[in-house]
């Protein structure tokens, strides 16, 4: 039971996908024009995340290692299709508000990331709680950004208006406002020295993706991960070699000095 509580806390606070890991930026920016849309997107993603984590965890001993990424993608895409059909049937308003971003949950790196990093290595129950925690963390992130934008741009929270229309800053509901709100939220995180993908060490590799694998577990990076690991090992080995050489040099110098001293003594 402890692991389950720990997974929930990990997803919502320690490794919050929106604020700490900065994953899944496309839906984060696109659908947060109101708190309700943010909440809807978050819960939809949570449902897919729980189902795909559970299923992939069940299949973790069956799926061969080499084809695991395509296999994960098929599993995730199936669940996304199921959820999309359910939304079309039962919550058509949310379905039309989120539009193309529902099928795009397939390429949300949080889902493939959790499949690769957790569900493919752990039993079913903890994986389900991992999915639930991550999903709720994502929901909280999206809802908070949605509330910020809705209050500033529309003077309302969850559609309940409390600021008169003359004082609305429509800018925040439009596309540029999304970037600006996220910029100020991450800046506040940096200022308060809260953990975030933007202020940790590392991520200075010459790789195209920045090489910051601690934050990125998406499928695309699996290939690059090996290269970066190898680079790191090589760098370590080079460092050790250099240290060894330096030590040898120091030893040689010491010996030479000792020999000189001995020579002097003999003189």
């Amino acid at each position, binding site marked *: 039971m402890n692991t389950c509580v720990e997974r929930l806390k990990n997803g919502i606070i320690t490794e919050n996908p929106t604020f700490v890991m900065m994953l899944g930026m*496309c839906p984060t920016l696109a659908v947060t024009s109101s708190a309700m849309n943010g909440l809807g997107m978050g819960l939809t993603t949570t449902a897919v995340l729980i189902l795909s984590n559970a299923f992939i965890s069940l299949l973790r001993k069956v799926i061969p290692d080499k084809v695991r990424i395509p296999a994960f993608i098929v599993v995730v895409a199936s669940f996304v299709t199921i959820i999309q059909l359910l939304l079309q049937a039962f919550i058509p308003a949310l379905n039309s508000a989120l539009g193309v971003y529902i099928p795009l949950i397939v390429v949300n790196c949080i889902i493939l990331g959790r499949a690769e990093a957790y569900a493919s290595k752990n039993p079913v129950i903890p994986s389900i709680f991992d999915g639930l925690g991550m999903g709720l963390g994502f929901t909280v992130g999206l809802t908070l950004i949605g509330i910020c934008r809705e209050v500033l741009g529309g003077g309302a929270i969850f559609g309940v208006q409390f600021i008169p229309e003359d004082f609305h800053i429509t800018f925040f509901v439009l596309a*540029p406002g999304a970037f600006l709100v996220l910029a100020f939220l991450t800046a506040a995180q940096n200022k308060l020295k809260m953990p975030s993908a933007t202020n940790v060490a590392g991520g200075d590799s010459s790789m195209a993706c920045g090489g910051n694998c601690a934050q990125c577990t998406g499928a695309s990076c699996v290939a690059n991960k090996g290269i970066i690991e190898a680079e790191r090992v090589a760098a370590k080995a080079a460092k050790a070699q250099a240290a060894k050489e330096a030590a040898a040099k120091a030893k040689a110098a010491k010996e030479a000095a000792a020999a000189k001293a001995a020579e002097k003594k003999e003189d």
Partner: protein
Amino acid sequence: MNIFVIMISSMLVSNVVLSQFLGICPFLGVSKKVETAAGMGAAVTFVITLASAITYPIYYFILEPLDLAYLETIAFILIIAALVQFVEMVLKKFMPPLYESLGVFLPLITTNCAVLGVAINNITNGCNFIESVLTGLFTALGFLVAIVILAAIRERIEYNDVPNSFKGTPIVLVTASLMAIAFCGFAGLV
């Protein structure tokens, strides 16, 4: 719909990154240098154009006649993943110089939501084959324009005195926001 309208609307008015928010990850991640940004943009252009050309016949000649239209998400993502692998192999074998310059970006593209987004949007909007390919091409060129401009601005920001808490991602997001405002200016064109 004439070519010019498609070009203006999908490249500038509804720019894929700045107003549709597709492909944000490479937009923020691969925009440190102009050369790498241009390489990424070129690779994305290549894959999106090909993907919109291939998903069209798959949808209208296989999925729709068999009443399997609801499988479009699964089918498209698999096609795109296979396509990226295939393009990588072809380039490696027949065009080594192009592979050298685009190769590192190709694996990153499978999970680029712009590719899947454009393919699905084409179907939703009921475009014909020519329109689909052109929309794909110009949307991707819009991505190229946006990422190259952002990279050029970031190269200059390197030498500026950015407030401490805005260093890194926040200043990039502020830049993107200003660019999005500029692109809003195209809204009345079409």
